[in-house]
């Protein structure tokens, strides 16, 4: 089966979950000859070497000044050119801001089926099937695409393994694609927003605080723990609404859906809406003064106690262990 994998890069840095998509692509394709990848950007040709051994013989590269910054129409055109060049029947990517922007556009363009944010994915004959969380993770849907010349799917980050099997020499094949007129859409700037940490949705470790932090200043005890363990800081909506944390830190139904391996919730009660965003975390640690707090029901480990005492101690212990 001819499979194409969209490899994402920003500022010349390959997205780590793109390797997860590529490993899956190699598996579905069955051979390195049938598996290809596509890289889009400016001065990105060199990145192809980083995917050597991950199962694709060819990396189509659209390398041009017009593709330096992400632009949905330009990138859709580039991926479309690679689909045609490879004769791809299945196109895989990551359920990231970029993947979730480009793939629906191409599915509409090619009148194709699309499955987004898969946590499992299989191919049997022509049929692509998988599982996708819906209702903020309250249900898992079995999803199937049986018809159409091309099928699109994106995978949830941190779920599929990235495996370097050694197959696939990732030879560069240059490709050109057209960019839209500036008058239609132009990316004028990509700048730093508030935070510099890994985005919550990508973070493998998260430390979250709730209303009980009681001030923006107190979040620094969470920042200290986060710095030690390499985590990103999140918050409940009550903390955001009270102005202790910024909205991009909010985890939950109306915030971000996260999927880290470790989620530490300090002074978060564990409302349905908060849990909708973090219940799929692999390991959850809850710190709360109230032994009846709902967060303890989903916690792998819990400490009934005052976060202002527990968190600094936890930071100290982790520091000992990790440095």
């Amino acid at each position: 089966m001819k499979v194409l994998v969209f490899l994402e890069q920003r500022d010349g840095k390959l997205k780590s979950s793109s390797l997860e998509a590529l490993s899956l692509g190699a598996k579905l394709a069955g051979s390195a000859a049938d598996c290809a990848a596509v890289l889009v950007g400016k001065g990105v040709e060199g990145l192809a070497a980083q995917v050597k051994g991950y199962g694709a013989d060819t990396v189509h590269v659209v390398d041009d000044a017009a593709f330096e910054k992400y632009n949905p129409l330009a990138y859709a055109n580039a991926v479309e050119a690679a689909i045609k060049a490879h004769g791809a029947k299945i196109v895989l990517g990551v359920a990231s801001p970029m993947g979730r922007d480009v793939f629906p556009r191409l599915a509409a363009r090619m009148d194709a089926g699309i499955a987004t944010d898969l946590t499992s994915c299989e191919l049997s004959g022509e049929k692509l099937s998988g599982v996708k969380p819906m209702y903020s993770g309250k249900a898992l849907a079995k999803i199937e695409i049986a018809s159409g010349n091309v099928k699109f799917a994106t995978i949830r980050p941190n779920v599929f393994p990235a495996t370097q099997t050694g197959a696939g020499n990732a030879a560069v094949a240059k490709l050109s694609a057209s960019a839209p007129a500036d008058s239609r859409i132009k990316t004028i700037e990509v700048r730093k927003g508030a935070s510099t940490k890994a985005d919550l949705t990508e973070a493998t470790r998260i430390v979250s605080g709730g209303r009980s932090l009681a001030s923006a200043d107190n979040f620094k005890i969470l920042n200290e723990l986060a710095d030690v363990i390499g985590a990103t800081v999140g918050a409940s909506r009550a903390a955001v609404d009270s102005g202790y944390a910024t909205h991009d830190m909010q985890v939950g139904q109306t915030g971000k859906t996260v999927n880290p391996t470790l989620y530490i919730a300090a002074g978060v009660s564990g409302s349905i809406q908060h849990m909708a965003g973090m219940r799929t975390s692999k390991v959850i640690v809850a710190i709360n003064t109230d032994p009846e707090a709902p967060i303890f029901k989903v916690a792998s480990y819990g400490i009934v106690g005052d976060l202002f005492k527990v968190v600094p101690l936890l930071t100290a212990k982790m520091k000992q262990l990790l440095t």
Partner: protein
Amino acid sequence: MKVLVLVKPTPDTESKIRISADGSKIETGDVKWIINPYDEYAIEEAVKIKEKAGAGDVIVACFGSDSAKELIVKALAVGGTRGLLVSNEGLETADSLTVAKVLAKAVASESPDLVFCGRHAIDDDNMHVGTMVAELLGWPHVNVVSKLEVTGKTAKAERSVEGGMVEVYEIGLPCVIGADKALNKPRYASLPGIMQAKKKPFDLKKPGDLGVDAAALKAGVRTVVTGFTNPPEKPAGKVFKGEDVEVMVDKVVKLLREEAKVI
């Protein structure tokens, strides 16, 4: 300026999601329906544009069942000027591209300057329909927009992406804008607003009225949800209480390292 807002009914965020005994569907009998929360930001932004201009149309459109009318009227109560409901009878479980095909025709029949949608719907968690509508119309789009400024025939839109980065776009109208939570603060309906909403114009259409062949659409559905399962229950956790704080912290750190192997 003529603005069209796409709204989708979704189960209330508090709803318990129950899977039918045979696993084929979600039981919706006791579900309370709301407008998809992100669509509320879309409505607000459209109404703000109308108010700033001092005039204009805000059409609130949905491809849904008859019961969606009530929700569209709620959007009219906060400033929408006209409702448009395209019946999805027989196509209730159609995939996102099928929905987008109908909505693209609905948009084309209204030729607005700007279309708003929500960044994603909280039932299917797809983030498909707005972008697909844009593609089917040959329009540009920006999704997950946290800030928007419309000046004449262009707009400046900011979208937040991973790593705390913000992409800033200049986009030509007509286009599709997907609203994120940071875009604005949706207002509550006033009593006069609620009263007036019931009298505002409301169109009920069938796909056929928009020149869409419903049977052909149905035959063209490619992505199918074949069933549902509950997410796996986690084994009961280990919760420590009543001991010395330092002892409890030590225990948890040890478990994280040796049992869970995540540190």
